């Protein structure tokens, strides 16, 4: 535990001395680091190699079209320190190319492949950028904010018209369908 | 309007002194007639806004007048026309609270309504007293019928009065 504390203090010191890095402790087990894209691999090397953050929990991608950027978040966990670092970095949305961290964290292969498929970000050096989930999909990367899945569905499918007996009866009396779900869908407003 | 009050009290005094059905009916008929004429006279005098009210009242009194005229022509009434009638006791309770106003040259709707209500009340109590003091039989039934007619009319006027005067408080 003392060793853990020392390491943790050391890490805080190193991070505060590195240029171009902002870090913030959200709690004793959660640390947020914002880092420039070109410095991220070095930071991960440091975290894994010298600070015991051996477990890559996930890589998350967030599309910020208004900023013209993809945000990539690398969540790494240290079994020794029992703490999780989320390293945030941003890359330009165009051309949307970044460096793979596969050589630092093997599990990155899955996450990078997934992000490539869903967001169209290409990771140079990643072992496999082929399709995985959306095998037959030929549209744009669907997780991008500019892909409107609801509009796509409305373009490609029809709402089914209902015609059960009870509906025929109230139509005969002058009633009938008043508000269709697609007109009232609160989430669409 | 003083002429009306005089006319009214005169006819009232006459009723009091009446002793036969024939005379009772005669005074009642003239009572309705004078009211009809009174409202009819008012029609051109009041503002067009309230004209509907006096027009309706005049029509109503005409209806009563017609009723009495047709009554007098009925055989059963004719048979009993000389029957002795006890002098009625009337009770002007409602008039205690709502005075019969001097309607003036251009009376408003409230004044007309108040007068009309008082009048119907008077007629109602009068017929009720007559009915009370008459032995059971067709004549008693006749007075009861008349009293009910006047009561209904009075009630209608009361509703109209409250709707016009009291409702509309913001």
């Amino acid at each position, binding site marked *: 535990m003392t060793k853990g504390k020392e390491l943790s203090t050391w890490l805080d010191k190193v991070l505060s001395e590195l240029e171009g890095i902002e870090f913030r402790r959200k709690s004793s087990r959660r640390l947020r680091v914002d880092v420039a894209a070109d410095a991220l691999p070095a930071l991960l090397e440091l975290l894994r190699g010298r600070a015991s953050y051996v477990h890559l929990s996930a890589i998350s991608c967030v599309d910020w079209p208004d900023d013209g950027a993809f945000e990539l978040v690398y969540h790494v966990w240290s079994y020794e320190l029992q703490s999780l670092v989320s390293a945030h970095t941003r890359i330009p949305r165009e051309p949307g190319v970044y460096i793979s961290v596969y050589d630092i964290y093997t599990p990155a292969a899955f996450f990078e492949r997934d992000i490539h498929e869903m967001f169209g970000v290409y990771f140079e050096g990643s072992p496999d950028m082929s399709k995985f989930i959306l095998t037959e999909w030929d549209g744009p990367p669907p997780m991008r904010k500019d892909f409107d899945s609801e509009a796509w569905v409305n373009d490609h499918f029809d709402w*089914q018209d*209902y*015609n*059960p*007996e*009870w*509906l025929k009866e*109230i139509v005969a*009396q*002058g*009633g*009938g*369908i*008043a*508000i*269709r*779900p*697609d007109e*009232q*869908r*609160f989430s669409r407003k | 309007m003083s002429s009306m009050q005089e006319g009214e009290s005169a006819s009232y005094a006459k009723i009091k002194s009446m002793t036969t059905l024939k005379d009772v009916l005669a005074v009642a008929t003239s009572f309705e007639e004078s009211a009809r004429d009174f409202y009819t006279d008012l029609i051109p005098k009041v*503002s*067009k*806004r*309230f*004209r*509907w*009210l006096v027009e309706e009242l005049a029509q109503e009194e005409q209806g009563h007048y017609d009723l009495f005229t047709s009554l007098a022509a009925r055989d059963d009434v004719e048979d009993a026309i000389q029957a002795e009638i006890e002098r009625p006791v009337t009770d002007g*309770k409602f008039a*205690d*609270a*709502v*005075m019969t*106003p001097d309607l003036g040259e251009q009376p408003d*709707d*409230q*004044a007309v309504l*108040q007068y009309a209500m008082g009048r119907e009340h008077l007629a109602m109590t009068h017929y009720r007293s007559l009915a009370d003091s008459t032995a059971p039989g067709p004549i008693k039934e006749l007075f009861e019928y008349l009293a009910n007619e006047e009561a209904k009319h009075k*009630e209608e006027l*009361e*509703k109209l009065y*409250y*709707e*016009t*005067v*009291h*409702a*509309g*408080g*913001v």
Partner: protein
Amino acid sequence: MSRIDPNDKGSILAPLKNLQFFGRKAVTESLDPRPASANYRGFHLNDWEACIGCSTCQKVCDNAAITMAEVPGLPEDPEKGVRNLRPAIDYGRCCWCALCVDLCPTGSISLSREYVHTCTDPELDSYFVLPDSSGIHGVAYDKGWAKHAESDMVALERTDMPELAPEARIGNFDEIVDGYDRNQGIIEASRCVQCGMCHDACPTHMNAPEYIRAIWQDDIEEAVRQIYRTNPFAHTCGRVCTHRCETACSVGHRGEPIAIRWLKRFAMDQLSHERVKQIAAEGRQSSPSGQRIAIIGAGPAGLTAAYDLAMQGHAVKVFEAMGAAGGMTRYGIPYYRLPADKLDNDVDVITSLGVEIQYDTRVGTDVTMEQLRDDYDAVLIAVGLWMGRSTRVRGADAEGVHRAVELLRKVADGESIPVPKRAVIIGGGNVAMDIARTLARLQKRKHGQVAITLTALEDIDHFLADPDEIREAREEGVEILDARGPQEVMLDGQGRATGLRTLKVLSIFDGQGRFAPKFDDADELVHDGDMVVEAIGQAADVNLLGEALTEELEWQRGRLRVDEQLRTSADWLWAAGDMVRGPDVVSAVADGHRAAASIHDHLMISEQAA
């Protein structure tokens, strides 16, 4: 627990121990129909008596499984907040999450304890069902998941509105209600389920769901924009509207309705007056139409029409008998409910559009109707109800007996009125409360204490006054005696009022709901008071029309006859507001819009014809 050795190679005999199970009962479940658990989320039940067709279930449905169907024959009453719509469920989409149950404002929807539904038709239509309280198969199953305090997601309680304590407000005319601050406004707005019942119930159909949502989104400018689309008396209605919207509010069926009126006020108070003026002028017709319109009366109806007509590019001139605009909202409503500066703001927005108001000009005296008819392309009369009715009981014309509207007008105009030691008020409407509370303030100032008795024919549940008014009047020391019929004003030797004699009212309505009080002669009271104020009803003073015009126009049981478009029988004259509609601010605003639209159409048609 039993220990398992990692080096145990196992035995082929070990599984044989379980041969004992041959002698036991099978674990398999019976397939006999059985009801599900008490909280089961099965198929929908909908109590059609309780359902108001507000469509909130449809809004919260995750999967767009709910379609609202109009069912003929069901009650449909916008003023009560009832629609004849009922939810129909597509079980091909439903995921049985029961959010529709938890967010149902009335609690009419629940889910049954029924497990199974299979397709009975060749078509998928058998999955589309209009549930009522008998369930979807007509087989009686009990309620499973239903409305419950633990899972209810409707915010039933209103955000408290801070207001002056009775002690702090009684000696002055300061505005009582503080208004929401930003945080409170957003929280109160967030309670809204956006059903739109308020919109339907409002006489002028305000875009209430839109401005409430804009307030929730902290977009005050948008809220004000939405308010001005339907109501230029925004400050006024934000304070003194009769808020039928809140009566119809779907949340009000089980809880406190959204404070729609206070939210409107909140939005108006948040924005600078200059910005309000800019927003109110958005979309104004820039080129003048060349048409001139005269409006008689600068009250809510007249000025609303003036606003609309000015926005259309017409030249509007308003003739006002008093020295300031606002009509009854200024001369009838005390400042503690509607401060004069707020009303001034509403009026200023309208005049800033070029509407000209000529004050202290009494039509019929200073200018005749005939002149207006000749000088203008159209005339709108909206003079309100300024004549206080008298009970005309015995003594009602004595010294010390007053009409409430006249006293209120004098107070608003800054004139002094006699302040009695004890006052008796006759009437149970908002005007009665206004004069009672105004006198209470004056008494406190002059005599140091409040001594007011208010009597009304109605029993307290049928008072026409707003419940808040009644509560606040009581807080301020006004004694309220309900169900008392005035019989006589008591007089002293000099013929001055000394009190009022009343009888107990036994019943006030007849079988048809018409006003027909019955009195109990035995229950008589005399209320002492050196002033008696009558606040029972009001009438319009239409003498300004003149005899000839009065004769010319058509009347309908005492009121000017107008059609749906508020046209009188004369083709140049329109009438609007309290004088044709009865007293209500927001209805007067609605009338103003309607009259303006009708006048505009008329002018456009005659222009085309010319």
